């Protein structure tokens, strides 16, 4: 877990590649594992139905391979995390060990959920995703740096530029990705906004 208030500038570690476009949050964590009142312990259910057969036997999936145990960076393709808004998806990935995600594009709610956990989800070009994937698949021990501050991803000799929305980058590098405190600090302005919304007074003011 990323500690509340922690500045997330660079995430470094070995990486794991999960190929495929439109990997939805039902695939990241099937709905039957959402029947919980805490996020603790969700790590083992990450990609459950593509990691294990219905009889419980292991399938060949990057998350099952010994060389990827301990990986901190996940590399994916397009529209990763589409579908259900379940925060259980990034929670499961984080609890499995993933602290940064590099992909061609992310679904919006998923990206927001990652940010709220202090997990950068950065975008790189299709060609650069392919380069990074090839490097990691060829050498799973390779360290990948996801540099949020400098907006780049580095692996071996490769250095590619990464995009991340200005405000998301700012929230990560300054350690305010957990927004509750900042929102609560504006109590007076909240009250002022409320006073200007006719429905908040039942249209009777």
């Amino acid at each position, binding site marked *: 877990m990323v500690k509340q208030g922690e500045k997330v500038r660079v995430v470094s570690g070995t990486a794991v590649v999960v190929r495929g476009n439109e990997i939805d949050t*039902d695939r990241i964590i099937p709905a039957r594992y959402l*029947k919980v009142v805490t996020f603790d312990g969700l790590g083992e259910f990450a990609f459950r139905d593509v990691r294990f057969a219905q009889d419980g036997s292991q399938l060949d999936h990057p998350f099952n391979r010994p060389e990827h145990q301990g990986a901190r960076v996940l590399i994916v393709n397009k529209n990763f995390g*589409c*579908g*259900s808004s*379940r925060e259980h998806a990034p929670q499961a990935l984080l609890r499995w060990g993933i602290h940064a995600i590099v992909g061609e594009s992310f679904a919006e709610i998923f990206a927001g959920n990652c940010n709220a956990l202090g997990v950068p989800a950065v975008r790189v070009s299709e060609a650069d995703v392919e380069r990074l994937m090839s490097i990691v698949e060829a050498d799973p021990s390779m360290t990948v740096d996801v540099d949020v501050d400098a907006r780049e991803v580095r692996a071996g000799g490769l250095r590619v530029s990464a995009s991340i929305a200005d405000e998301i980058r700012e929230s990560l590098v300054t350690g305010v990705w957990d927004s509750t405190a900042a929102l609560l600090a504006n109590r007076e302005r909240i009250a002022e906004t409320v006073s200007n919304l*006719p429905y*908040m007074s039942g249209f009777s003011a």
Partner: protein
Amino acid sequence: MSKNLLNKVWDLHTVDQLSTGQDQLFIGLHLIHEVTSPQAFQMLEERGLQVLYPERTLATVDHIVPTADQSRPFDDPLAEEMMRALEQNTRKHGITFYHLGTEHQGIVHIVGPELGATQPGMTIACGDSHTSTHGAFGSIAFGIGTSQIRDVLATQCMAVTRPEVRRVQVDGLLGPGVYAKDIILRIIADLGVKGGIGYAYEFGGSTIDALSMEGRMTICNMSIEGGARVGYVNPDATTYDYIKGREYAPKAAVFETAVQYWQSVASGPDAEYDDRYELDATTLEPMVTWGINPGQAIGVSQTMPRLASLPDSLRDVAKSAYEHMGFAEAAPIEGTPIDVAFIGSCTNARLSDLREAARVVEGRSVASGVRAFVVPGSKQVARQAEAEGLPQVFERAGFQWRGAGCSMCLAMNPDKLNGREICASSSNRNFIGRQGSPTGRTLLMSPAMVAAAALNGRVTDVRSITPASAA
């Protein structure tokens, strides 16, 4: 040029700009359910925070409730635990809870509007991606994650970036047997499942104007399937008539004042947009998905695409879709055998959906070997359907009539596909494993099309069964 609805409502609800550059947006209505809220309440406890505006949050239970036997305790101890957590959290924080013992329990996106809690010119958030449904009323409604639920509970605000707005213009009369579901499936097929990322979709045009609130809700509901987190329709007389007299509606004495506010936030004829898309509704036919995302949809008379004919960007997922579905390239979708017929979900389990399906099945029988069931979206929908005798129509035809809940849309309850079953479904997602079996297969379509498929045991053009009208 003038501001569109999104920008007007956004400006009214902006509390401040945060140090990150994100907007602090006030949320007028917060809806919660049992699946995504318990961890948020736990986080509040850990931080010693209270719920800032408990009267602006409403709760109901939908995802985990069994639809066959709803007696407590539930057979599933995990479901029972989630139910108890919501009971405790709402009691402790003074939040109104429409539980199973009330007349307003149901799928959260059906309950909010039918209570009159969903209103134009409001910001709405809920820990569920289909929150976009509420945009049908001219509200800005977001699906959020659990950490954001924590924020909304503690501050009634969220940190968020303003989206751009794409005007989705739909004009022309719908043909018989063609519904709101077919419009949105066509839009997603055209613009792609990620085409809406970064956008709010404003749906308008003569076709949208002519739709009932229920049809508009179906369209806004599936905005997120096209990647747009927010979808909305400008409020009009249809909207105001729907809201009037409902429990949380503005009272008669101030209703006109409310209407003035609602009209003031609507996009004017000269409103500015960041992008536009146009659809001729007269060209639509009933739509059916053949693949593993909602964008993989074709008209019922069409054949499934050849991989070679698809752009590179769509080919890989199409290939995975053929592998999962076991269908052949260029095969017709019509005639595809089905095992299960499911009419339900926040997309299509409102009264008009059930009426249209009932019209198709009346006096006919479900094909042998097909498991068919109807799950009303809320207890209110169930009561209205009962008053019209719809359960008997369905039961005589061989459908099971169930209690309100999310049911087989996402299989967090006992309703699930088994093995490689194929389900004709009025829900919103055909993702691999979505309906509870990792190898199960889902074909999305309108409720009337599900009814037609149930009768023949295979995908059927509903227009060949009944002289349906474009209700």
